């Protein structure tokens, strides 16, 4: 499967090389430059995931812990918090985040700990902020801190949590569930971009993102759903089930892109950060996975896990 991904990336590199040759020496082409850096960054990201998978469970936990930290940094940087939030944010970064992402302390599906951020973080961080007695925009500030944790830490932690599902007849293969989720959702992003660039005409949400088109959405989601169905053999699902689940997570991923675009537009920025060349920040790349992971986790747990 990794060979398949590498083959696709190699093809993309060759295509961009040919495009570069053809347009060499003409006026600077920002779209092409962006395509080049995107493909380059994809090589790095696939190598990173491959490395994490090579270390198995520990590798995946470390990779997503770092991703959560990077995402929370980006989110809080753009949130207009005040000095009165400092202690609550320090607790969010140095207590809540490690408790959530580190193994053994808190795993989903094992009782009270799965509601750690949505219940205890929700109530106690607001209490910590209240003790500073700064009431200006209090509710907005508390809500922003909580949203940052829900998006960057809680939702994303459903990816490594897939390793804890006990599916009869699928023992020892849970890493492939993560591969399925990430591969389908990310390919949906890429295919929406490709279809949009090729025949995108009607913008689907012009107020949020000028680059998202109806053609890109339909073509991207449909082709990524087909890909998901064809990957049924790495999952505990049948062909049709894999297709239905792929459609579901692709739609969630699309919603993730829309919601995170709305926040960026409101904050007046184009990207969440600059960690990944050509893509922007970690949240720019993971917004779809963040929205798809909890739904994928719960559907799989409800219908397949014991």
């Amino acid at each position, binding site marked *: 499967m990794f060979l398949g991904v590498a083959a696709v990336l190699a093809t993309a590199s060759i295509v961009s090389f040919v495009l570069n040759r053809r347009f060499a020496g003409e006026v600077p082409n920002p779209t092409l430059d962006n395509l080049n850096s995107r493909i380059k960054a994809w090589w790095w990201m696939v190598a990173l995931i491959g490395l994490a998978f090579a270390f198995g469970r520990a590798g995946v936990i470390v990779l997503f812990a770092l991703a959560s*930290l990077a995402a929370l940094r*980006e989110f*809080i*940087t753009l949130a207009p918090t005040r*000095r009165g939030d*400092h*202690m609550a*944010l*320090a607790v969010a970064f*140095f207590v809540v985040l490690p408790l959530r992402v580190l193994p053994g302390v808190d795993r989903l599906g094992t009782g009270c700990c799965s509601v750690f951020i949505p219940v205890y973080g929700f109530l106690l961080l607001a209490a910590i902020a209240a003790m500073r007695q700064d009431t200006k925009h209090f509710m907005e500030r508390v809500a922003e801190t909580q949203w940052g944790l829900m998006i960057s830490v809680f939702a994303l932690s459903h990816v490594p949590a897939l390793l804890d599902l006990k599916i009869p007849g699928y023992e020892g293969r849970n890493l492939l569930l993560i591969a399925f989720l990430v591969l389908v959702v990310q390919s949906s992003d890429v295919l929406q971009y490709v279809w949009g660039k090729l025949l995108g005409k009607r913008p689907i949400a012009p107020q949020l993102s000028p680059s998202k088109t109806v053609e890109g959405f339909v073509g991207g989601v449909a082709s990524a759903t087909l890909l998901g169905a064809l990957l049924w053999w790495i999952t505990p699902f049948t062909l049709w089930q894999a297709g239905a689940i792929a459609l579901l997570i692709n739609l969630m991923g699309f919603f993730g892109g829309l919601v995170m675009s709305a926040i960026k537009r409101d904050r007046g920025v184009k990207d969440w950060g600059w960690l990944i060349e050509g893509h922007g920040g970690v949240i720019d790349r993971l917004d779809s996975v963040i929205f798809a992971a909890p739904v994928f986790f719960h559907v799989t747990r409800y219908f397949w896990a014991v």
Partner: protein
Amino acid sequence: MVPVWIENLNRVMPKGEFVPLPLLCTVTLGCPIRLAADETKTAFLDRSRRALVALGRRGQTKR
């Protein structure tokens, strides 16, 4: 002496706090400033302060 402007520092660690937050920052490095031969201490401090403020302002217009 090299003036360094750290944008967002007031949110990373406001006055009186003891834990820095790991937020994104932009560090702008300025040109080195040297003490001139006949410059007084206050004049030099004032000149370095202005160099620093100018760096901060440049960072803001860039964004």
